[in-house]
């Protein structure tokens, strides 16, 4: 069996007296889509921010591609980050840049990329999310769903091996949400990515995930396929699925 691409052991993270993650362990296998469900404030976003080291955990270990994230220097960390894509809840597009410039932005980390190659990659990434026509627009001219898709295109432009989706369907109407969920599935097929999808949206989890875990108070309270988890006896999990 292939080793897990992400291996988290006994992760703890607190903000003052607030224990957000309490001894959490989980693994993500290559090519797997893992959805993390849970109420607001249960530590879902903190977990993925710890994985990409936007936050430093208090205790525990995070191993990505076989490397302990805490032991990496700045250069090595940036090299690993180039293999990761992150779709933020707000899409986090750079307001002062056009869609094209937003997509070109991560490409600056690649050594000696030609302008032709850059244009090709930008156009391809936008075609993947069906937004080729928006290439010269400013982020302020885009709708919420379009911003998410541009954000997704930007996170895919470096052809990552791992994708993190932080509440990809929050704030979108059901039809657009479904579109984004199917896009996540398409991304996995096309790029063979492993993904962690943070969501409250059961339908999104059902469409996108191979496996689901439910977090409560920073601990995993249920794990399995979405059908298995939905039949759990745990009251917190039941409440979530009702």
């Amino acid at each position: 069996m292939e080793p897990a691409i992400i291996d988290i052991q006994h992760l703890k993270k607190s903000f003052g007296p607030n224990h957000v993650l309490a001894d959490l362990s989980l693994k993500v296998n290559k090519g797997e889509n893992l959805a993390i469900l849970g109420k607001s404030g249960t530590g879902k976003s903190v977990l993925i921010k710890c994985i990409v080291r936007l936050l430093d955990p208090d205790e525990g270990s995070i191993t990505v591609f076989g490397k302990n994230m805490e032991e990496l220097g700045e250069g090595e960390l940036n090299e690993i980050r180039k293999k990761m894509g992150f779709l933020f809840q707000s899409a986090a597009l750079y307001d002062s840049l056009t869609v094209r410039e937003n997509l070109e932005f991560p490409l600056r980390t690649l050594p000696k990329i030609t302008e032709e190659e850059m244009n090709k990659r930008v156009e391809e990434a936008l075609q993947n999310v069906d937004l080729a026509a928006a290439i010269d627009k400013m982020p302020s001219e885009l709708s919420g769903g379009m911003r998410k898709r541009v954000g997704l295109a930007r996170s895919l432009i470096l052809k990552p091996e791992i994708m993190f989706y932080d509440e990809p369907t929050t704030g979108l109407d059901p039809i657009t949400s479904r579109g984004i969920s199917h896009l996540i599935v398409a991304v996995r097929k096309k790029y063979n990515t492993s993904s962690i999808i943070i969501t409250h949206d059961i339908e999104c989890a059902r469409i996108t995930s191979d496996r689901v875990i439910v977090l409560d108070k920073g601990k995993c309270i249920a794990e399995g396929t979405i059908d298995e988890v939905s039949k759990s006896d745990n009251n917190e999990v039941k409440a979530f699925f009702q």
Partner: protein
Amino acid sequence: MLCLMGNLVFKYHKQVLFNPMIDNNEAVIVKKESLIKRYLVGMSKLTVFFVHFFKEVFKPPYEFKEFMKQSYRIGNQSFLLVATTAFIMGLVLTIQSRPALVQFGAQSWLPAMVAVSIVREIGPVITALICAGKVGSGIGAELASMKVTEQIDSMEVSGINPFKYVVVTRILSATLMLPLLVVFADTVALFGSYFGVNLKDTVSFQLFFIEVFQKLDFSDVFPAFIKTFFFGFSIGLVSCYMGYNADNGTEGVGKAANSAVVFGSLMVFVVDMVAVQITNLFST
């Protein structure tokens, strides 16, 4: 340092002296301790930010395109505001100074006196204060909103150093653009002064500027020009610090913009005070 001290005093007054819940000496001491702790933490964070800037500024890759963009925003887009203010400043200073000189029959000294005032002190300080308002609030609010909307996090996970891209470029632009704006402002203010002189007297353009340049000395121009780099640096540093360390939420954006203007302006006076002392030290 002084801006943080001002912040401390303000918070102390607000939270301790005017708080009816704290009515015994022990509670006041505890509050004082926590405020001192917060002051020291703030000081150390600003120092770390300052050191971080110097660590990043010489390290490649250099964000030249972003630096040019910020220089355009800070410099070019402030021209009109600076020009208008400078013209009025020169004009008003001339009109206000004239009666006092007339009393001594010394109105022929007016161009020289106004020029020395503008070049040595008023031009740099007023221009820096305008920039602390316009540029400082812009940088503070922009960086804070970038932080709130996770744009800075997004750069970091893309493997791009956000400090270098966002902070270093803005501080450098502010440092280099402010002196140019001050030179421009001084020039416009002298034109304003020429206009002011000609409201009551008739002085030719050539004579006015001969008077100005005869009295202006290297020791008037050089220290005043050098201190503008420090004005620009302190405005850039403080506003980037406030924006980059803003609290989350829209309230944090407002606070960052406000603090950037208040502490940026305060820093201008602090730097000016230090610069005047150093200049005096060398001139004596």
